[in-house]
């Protein structure tokens, strides 16, 4: 039997056994919390609180700065200390609202809905929008925008991205094991928006227990289906997932909706459930602290805004000195030079590596072996694109489909000459997109 998948991809060591069987534990934040106003793609949120204001947990502290934007909520009760610049996990300095945590976690009032099926489509989208739900897999695209396609009748598939193909990460897996009902309930809410759609849970086959759990839960749901997928990186890439589940292909210029699909990550769908059914805004998520340098790798239910350093401490700190700390997974995560940064809606893991082999390798000459070509899930020729990038040949770069790159890093991963292919391609892609915007 051949499992559903896409062409290309790589098989990195997945490291999930470190934390996959560790049940999530609740972690309450300490000290001041920083809430960057930009935790999503689109316009930054606009702060609506002032220094000295008292806020409740779940209270909005910054409103959406436009349609493609999302509000920010405080995850604790306390006093606003002001707005300061703060470093985020991707390295940018951004404005952040600082809140002094009073340690009481007094919550704002949330209106729970008795019967979700009685809500209109507009009400559902409105609730999702007002709860600040964004794509929590990393991209941070505002979910209400995704759920408002031009032609809702043409949406045939709602795909729950349960692949979690990035090595080491186990937050989605824990959610599927501990609260699969919420995931299914969230999917039900989304299906209410799209009359012609089917809900598909795409799960990699290295999580057989999650597949079994979900299959059991959806057996009486005629509009839902669990789709086991081959375990291969980047199976959870949006375009790769759509290909595997529906056999449809989209390119960089298209939206999933162009192929009749909407893709949402596990945490996002659970956040949709919280927002619509319980009326709760997005203030917490599951977060994995893992890696061979961590004393006690585990999964936490965190209040968004908790600092990386506190999470590391809660996992017993480092047992070995680490050479590299990464926000996210090893394939697409961001290397950190400091843990004094806040978690946001989109940060899912802290990975601590004792030895950083990757940055010690010496780059040698390309031998044209074609391993990058075989690995590329987008059928590109990464070695040539990297050459074009180094030679600043933007025209050829675009002609050889450089802008289709999804930045998954599979090419660099497999390169025997240790070339930083993905890095070079990302650089030129950024320049090329910037040049396009100028025009």
């Amino acid at each position, binding site marked *: 039997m051949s499992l559903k998948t*896409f*062409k290309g991809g790589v098989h*990195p*060591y997945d490291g999930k056994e470190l934390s996959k069987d560790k049940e999530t534990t609740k972690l309450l934040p300490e000290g001041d919390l920083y809430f960057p106003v930009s935790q999503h793609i689109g316009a930054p949120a606009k702060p609506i609180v002032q220094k000295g204001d008292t806020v409740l947990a779940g209270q909005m502290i910054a409103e959406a700065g436009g349609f493609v934007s999302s509000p920010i909520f405080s995850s604790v009760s306390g006093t606003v200390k002001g707005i300061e610049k703060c470093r985020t996990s991707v390295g940018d300095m951004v404005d952040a609202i600082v809140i002094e945590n009073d340690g009481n976690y007094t919550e704002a009032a949330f209106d729970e809905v008795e019967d979700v099926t009685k809500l209109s489509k507009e009400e559902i989208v409105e609730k999702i929008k007002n709860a600040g739900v964004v794509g929590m897999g990393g991209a941070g695209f505002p979910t209400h925008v995704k759920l408002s396609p031009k032609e809702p009748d043409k949406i045939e598939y709602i795909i729950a991205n349960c692949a979690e193909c990035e*090595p080491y990460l186990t937050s989605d897996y824990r959610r599927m094991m501990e609260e699969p009902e919420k995931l299914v309930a969230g999917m039900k809410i989304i299906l209410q928006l799209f009359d012609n759609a089917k809900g598909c849970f795409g799960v990699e086959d290295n999580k057989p227990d999650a597949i079994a759990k979900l299959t059991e839960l959806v057996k009486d749901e005629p509009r839902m289906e669990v789709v086991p997928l081959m375990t291969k990186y980047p199976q959870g890439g949006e*375009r790769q997932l759509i290909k595997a589940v529906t056999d*449809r*292909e*989209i*390119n*960089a210029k*298209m939206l999933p909706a162009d192929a009749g699909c909407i893709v949402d990550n596990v945490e996002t769908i659970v956040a949709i459930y919280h927002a619509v059914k319980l009326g709760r805004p997005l203030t917490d998520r599951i977060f994995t602290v893992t890696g061979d340098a961590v004393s006690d790798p585990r999964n936490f239910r965190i209040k968004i805004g908790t600092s990386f350093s506190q999470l590391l401490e809660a996992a017993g700190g480092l047992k070995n*000195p*680490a*050479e*590299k*700390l*990464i926000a996210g997974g*090893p*394939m*697409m*995560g*961001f*290397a*950190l*030079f*400091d*843990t004094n940064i806040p978690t946001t809606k989109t940060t899912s893991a802290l*990975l601590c590596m004792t030895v*950083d*082999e*990757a*940055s010690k*390798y010496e780059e*040698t*000459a*390309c*031998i*044209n*072996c*074609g391993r990058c*070509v075989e690995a590329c*899930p*987008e*059928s*590109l*020729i990464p070695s040539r694109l990297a050459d074009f990038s180094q030679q600043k040949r933007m025209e050829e770069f675009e*002609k050889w*489909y450089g802008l*289709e790159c999804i930045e998954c*890093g599979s090419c660099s*991963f*497999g*390169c*025997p*000459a*240790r070339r930083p292919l*993905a*890095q070079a391609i*990302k650089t030129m892609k950024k320049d090329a997109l910037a040049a396009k915007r100028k025009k």
Partner: protein
Amino acid sequence: MDNILHVTSAPHVREKTDTQRIMLYVIISLLPASIFGIYNFGWRALVMIIISIGSCVLSEFCYEKLLHKKITIKDLSAVVTGLLLALNVPHTLPFWMVALGGVFAIIVVKMLFGGLGQNFMNPALGARCFLVISFTGAMTSFTYDGVTGATPLALLKNGESVDVMSMLIGRTGGTIGETSAIALLLGAIILILLGVIDLRIPGTYIITFAIFTLLFGGHGFDLNFLVAEIVGGGLLLGAFFMATDYVTSPITPLGKIIFGIILGVLTGIFRFFGPSAEGVSYAIIFSNLLVPLIEKWTVPRAFGIVKEKKEKKEKGGEKA
């Protein structure tokens, strides 16, 4: 945090295989043919291999030392070139000639064009052709069991019959590494299993050549002749170990197939319509020159691009 953290761009993990390991795999896969060559032709074959490898590695070392470049001999690519060159010459060749060939392969074909990854022609084959042109007599006289005689392919060309079984085993005259089809195929299987090569180039090469032989070989559907043509001469050695040289073959998947077809046709033309019974070396180095062009024509469509065009047409149609 008292230690200094590394900050680099993703991905933060890499696969273990590096260039050196790939070259090592190629060397391992050439061992069956090398060992059989030594067994078949005696000590001279062993010395030939050692001198050829020594000449290649030393040439690379001296060139880089003299020009104050980074010494790259530990990537083992010069060892592969030296070994391939030795397998491509008769065991009776004067040793100084193979040494000269090694210098030519590394200095002229490889280093002058920028070193590993930049040469447009397979160094070992470039050197072999250089030796054939310079020392035709020494390069084309083959002695087997003390008797100088024609190779099986030359016999076939003259319309004589050959013993296919001894060609499979390799008990015939020829260059050091080309005679034993079984040893070469064993090496090819190792290469494929280790993931160094796939069948795109050698497969299309051999199939195309087989079809060409059936059509234009002049023997119709003569299975004995067909098999002898495939296992004879340098075809297997060339198809699996030299046409697949990464640097001098196309990187695009479709390009590899076109490359294999061109190789098959050219080898057929050279063998059946040329003056020599051999044709593999020239077919490969000539096709090497076409690689940039083949790649340019065969840039694969990126994922999802085809559908977009179709959809545009559909949408256009709706509007009209």
